[in-house]
């Protein structure tokens, strides 16, 4: 489903020195997986996230998402692809201020080819357990609730891939666990999730951990017994 084949990404630093952010990375992720991409800052995991999220094109190599060759797309086609296939969840939630939860969730519908249907936004909010917070402004919600709104927004166009970038980084541990429980729950229902994190403990909630260092994949292993955020919550 996601095939990254020999992808290299280079940047020009200060206009002259070439920096390899990704160095011949090859990675395959199947539908329904929950993968953590772990690595320290500067390891290249953000660059990998940008390529995976179709925000950036590889300098060389191939990237196929749902049988679409991403490397050959122009800016508009990439935008359409992001809208249809990818749901982003950010560390800082990125909700619009003075805008209700429902309006925030509707935002991707504005850029979709499909007709604007409010009930889909309502259903997405129900999925994340915020059906009763539709008309609250973002500022009236707790951090955990804001991240749930962001997850509902990521789900609204029924994406092939949910990309979560340090989704619990701005939350206290309990709210963080709740968000992890929600992501695990979504994954159990068949959603493909890729989570980027620097936190090894958090990564163990995934079924598979891909370790990135210096722009290369250093390790790729299944987690034998993923942590259950739901159990941790009810247990303590």
């Amino acid at each position, binding site marked *: 489903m996601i095939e990254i084949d020999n992808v290299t990404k280079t940047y020009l630093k200060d206009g002259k020195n070439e920096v390899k952010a990704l160095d011949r990375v090859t990675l395959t992720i199947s539908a329904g997986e929950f993968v953590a991409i772990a690595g320290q800052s500067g390891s290249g995991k953000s660059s990998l996230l*940008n390529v995976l*999220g179709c*925000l*950036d094109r590889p300098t060389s190599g191939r990237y196929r998402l749902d049988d679409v060759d991403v490397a050959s797309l122009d*800016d*508009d086609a990439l*935008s*359409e692809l*992001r*809208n*249809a296939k990818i749901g*982003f969840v*950010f*560390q*800082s939630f*990125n909700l*619009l*201020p*003075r*805008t209700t939860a429902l*309006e925030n969730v*509707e*935002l*991707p*519908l*504005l*850029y*979709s080819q499909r*007709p*604007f249907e409010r009930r889909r936004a309502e259903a997405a909010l129900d999925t994340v357990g915020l059906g009763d917070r539709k008309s609250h402004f973002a500022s009236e919600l707790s951090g955990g609730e804001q991240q749930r709104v962001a997850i509902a*927004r990521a789900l609204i*166009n029924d994406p092939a891939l949910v990309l979560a970038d340090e989704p619990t980084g701005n939350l206290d541990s309990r709210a963080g666990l709740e968000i992890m429980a929600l992501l695990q729950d979504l994954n159990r229902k068949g959603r493909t999730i890729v989570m980027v994190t620097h936190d090894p403990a958090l990564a163990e909630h995934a079924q598979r951990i891909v370790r990135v260092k210096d722009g290369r994949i250093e390790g790729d292993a299944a987690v034998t017994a993923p942590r259950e955020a739901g159990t941790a919550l009810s247990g303590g």
Partner: protein
Amino acid sequence: MKWRVSTRLALRALSVHKLRTFFMMLGVIVGIATLTVIVSLGQRTRQQVMERFKNMVGSLDTVVVRPGSPATRGMASMSDVEPTLLRADAEAIAREIPLIRRVAPVQNASGVEMKVSDLNTTAAVFGVTSDWLELRNESVAEGGFFTASDEEGLARAAVIGKDVVKALFPDGDALGKTIKINNVNCEVKGILKSRGVGPGGGSMDNLAYVPLSTFSRRLYNQDHLTMAIAELKDPRDSDRAIEQMTALLRERHGIVPPAEDDFQFTSPRASMERMASMATRFNTLLTLVAAVSLLVGGVVIMNLMLSSITERRKEIGLRRSLGAKKRDITLQFLLESLVVTLLGGAIGAGLAVGGSYALFALANLPPLLSWQALSLALVCCVFIGIVFGIQPARRAASLDPIEALRE
């Protein structure tokens, strides 16, 4: 549906910084308010001038022939007019040019002394024919007008305006009395219905009519006319009629090239347009105020939007990550600047119209509200919103989404 949602989101975005949004609107508010006042007032003045002018000349479908070369300027009066245009000329025009329905020959003088015992006043006096009222669309309030036989008999008869009545007959009872016009006794046969004020704002009731023959034989003993008013059968024939009258009068007056005409033509319609545009010229200063406000308003909008882009970097990155194309971002920011200018414009126009309700209620005038003013305001708002919004919008759209999303 999507436009409605986008507009609501634009309003939400603008509500985050209310003070900034207000400052973005300020120039547009002032500019549009001024513009609305200018256009509405100008229109009203123009309308008023045109109405008064029409009221003064009666029918607009005429051509006025005056003696003197085309370079001659100013209102003609018996004492200073060239003696070139004769009653026979007027009759020839009516007879020989089929485009003309009829011609009214006129002699007139201004500042003529009028007396009743020890009271006296000065007024304009016109020597006219008996069909004058019909041609000019005037009527008498009391009594009647003189007839064709009065004209033939050089009758000592006068029909006077309200101002003359007021000055010479304080008790208001003028009908049948005798007044001295230029030291000639005339009987008041009628009192004209008031015509109010003329296009210049002066009274149009300070005058007297006498039969043309009485004017030329008894009052002044002169035959030449001060003007002849030719009524067109079809108003569209004005230019052709002038051509034919020119040829006829040149022939009758024995004028051969290179000598100039000794007569001139004016068209009331053209004079009216000229007067109306002169009457609205005072608006230049206000127009400048409006233009400067709108320009400053636009520049303020542009700058505040440019500075808000830095602050809304992450929002732009977010929208791009959710699938917004560059064009969508451009449109979003353009929509916001349009919302600002349109809201500002609505407030400005509202202030102008509302203010005029309050002010004109005191003066008992209808308030200013013209759809021309409002549609011009709308066009200005859209124009400013686009012209000054496009650069910030383009800049927002050109942000690299990865850069924009960076923590």
